[in-house]
């Protein structure tokens, strides 16, 4: 089975030194979404410090395969609501 490496960036970059063997690219894509979901759940507060979160997946040769990016941004000021919440 091919080996895939899952590097993450959520303010702190974490490189995957070992990788995980998975049947194919489609399986790696599903695992990456699960990993992203689990990490976001765990680091909900941290996310807003950087407002960016990504999982980048490479194969055993180091070739980039795909990336999942989650971005958070405040919506433009909408007067009334923005004043009330102080944002």
């Amino acid at each position, binding site marked *: 089975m091919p080996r895939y490496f899952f590097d993450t960036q959520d303010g702190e970059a974490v490189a995957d030194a070992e990788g995980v063997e998975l049947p194919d690219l489609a399986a790696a894509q599903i695992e990456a979404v699960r*990993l992203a979901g689990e990490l976001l759940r765990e680091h909900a507060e941290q996310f807003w410090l950087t407002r960016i979160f990504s999982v980048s997946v490479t194969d055993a040769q180091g070739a980039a395969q795909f990336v999942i990016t989650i971005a958070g941004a405040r919506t433009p000021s909408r007067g009334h609501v923005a004043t009330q919440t102080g944002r």
Partner: protein
Amino acid sequence: MRHPLIVKLERRDGLSPHEHQILEDATSSVETFAANADIVREGDVADHSCLILEGWTTRSKTLADGRRQITAFHIPGDFVDLHSFLLKPMDHTITALTPCRMAMTPHTALRRISEEHPHLTRMLWLSTLIDAAIHREWLVAIGRLSAAAHLAHLLCELYLRLEVVGLAKDHRFEFPVTQTVLADALGLSTVHVNRVVQELRRDGLVAWRGTHVTIKDWEALVRLAEFDPTYLNLAPRPR
């Protein structure tokens, strides 16, 4: 080797020589199972309960889409389906994680113990209560702990349980799981499990080679896991 059930129970309260004999007689019929064999399947109506003499088993449920949740790891001295004496049919599956030697204990023998030996009955009841306490801790861990803390909690628990039956010491033990099995027990993706294993290693909390685990910094692992062993009831007292 001493009988692992007797060792496990005596950690919680002493047993008389007569009680030793009763347990040894009840658990004298031994069967072996290959790794990955189902020992009891969901839906089975058993007429005996299985005590592990050697090896590891899992309790698990498998969903319609094939995903599996492991709800317990069991080790020697654990009566994996003592409850099947009273709860029929089985509501989950018990699978050998490694080759296992199991004492197949007839329910007729358990019935006799429950009718004639009240202290021994309480001790068997205690063992199912400890299993339930472990399930509660797993529920908290799976619902609320971070992945790293959850894995740390599992390692602390297994070390203490294995130490009771003489299968761990000096912070070393064998943990015969793949990362896929671990992912099914922790309710996490395999990739995430791989990541937290690397994290615990990198932070110097554990060394983990193949199935051999060494806890390098017990205090730090306990702190990370918020591990409190009270639920394992490891102190001997009259019961």
